[in-house]
């Protein structure tokens, strides 16, 4: 029983800790780019995003920087790449949170809610949030380079949430059409 509590408690504790730290870990060093963000419409995660994630979390650039034999350059590189990696995680988390909020609002008014799909979606979203929290923590601790697979998986999870929500929205529109036609 104690083991179950410990195993169940660790992710919850981690989430609480991360959300508390979130207030101070909000990319405070990042400034001017964020100020321009409102000018850019959020784009759906396409092949460019996947390639971008591969690049951010790849060790190729780090190896190149290592070859320059400059401690300063290494330091600047690590700070820059960490900043970009954290930016992606926070942005992905906030984009998915936004579409989940929109979905919740829509679901409240829905008359034919598919419980199984909603539960699946909620679990997928919880997994996504945990992955984001762990990514933030691990990027802060070790830098982004050992986390390529985890970041790619997180992107896959966010895209799968998007696909489920698209399907849900489509079926809701169809149901509304049927009701209107009846």
């Amino acid at each position, binding site marked *: 029983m104690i083991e179950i509590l410990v195993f169940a408690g660790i992710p919850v504790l981690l989430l609480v800790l991360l959300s508390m730290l979130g207030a101070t870990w909000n990319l405070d060093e990042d400034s001017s780019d964020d100020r321009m963000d409102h*000018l850019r419409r959020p784009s759906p995660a396409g092949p*460019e995003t996947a390639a*971008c994630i591969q690049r951010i979390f790849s060790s190729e*650039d780090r190896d190149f*920087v290592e070859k320059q034999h*400059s401690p300063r*350059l290494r330091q*600047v590189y690590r700070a820059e790449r960490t900043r*970009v990696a954290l930016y992606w995680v926070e942005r992905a988390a906030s984009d998915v949170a936004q579409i989940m909020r929109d979905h919740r609002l829509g679901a409240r008014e829905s008359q034919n809610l598919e419980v199984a799909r909603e539960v699946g979606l909620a679990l997928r979203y919880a997994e996504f949030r945990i992955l984001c929290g762990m990514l933030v923590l691990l990027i802060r601790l070790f830098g982004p380079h050992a986390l390529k697979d985890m970041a790619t998986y997180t992107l896959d999870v966010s895209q799968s949430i998007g696909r489920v929500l698209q399907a849900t929205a489509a079926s809701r529109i169809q149901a509304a059409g049927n009701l209107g036609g009846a």
Partner: protein
Amino acid sequence: MQTAYDDLLRRTLANIPCDLARLIYLASTRDYNTGAYHHEGLSVRHRPGEARDALQAAHRDIFYKLASLSLEQLVDELELYVRVSREQPTGLLRTWQELEPYRVAVPMEVDPTMVKLFLSNIKLALEVLKHRRFQLQGLPSSASPLPSLGR
């Protein structure tokens, strides 16, 4: 739009020696206030709407191409840009580091993470070129003329 795009690539962009210069050129065809693109020659040969779309698409394509380069490739690209600009490398690098003019070369409505990565990589590429310059001269600090970066 495809015809205008091909025309833009063939007649104009092919004559620009590197992608970074192409990016800056395409950004310069965009109005700072409205964000609308305009190219006199292209608008004469094609419909204004098509010319605008072609410029926008080319701008975005070049940006994505540059943003997905490895840091090493971007350093080479920047080195080439410095060489073909015919400006004093010292001044150009300092200006780019201080004023960050490359920020305005970013197209609108592109993946924000990609924008972030691109800007960060340019910053790093500038640091690499600066470091190489010091290494070539055996200097621990700045305030010395920059040797030819092409070598």
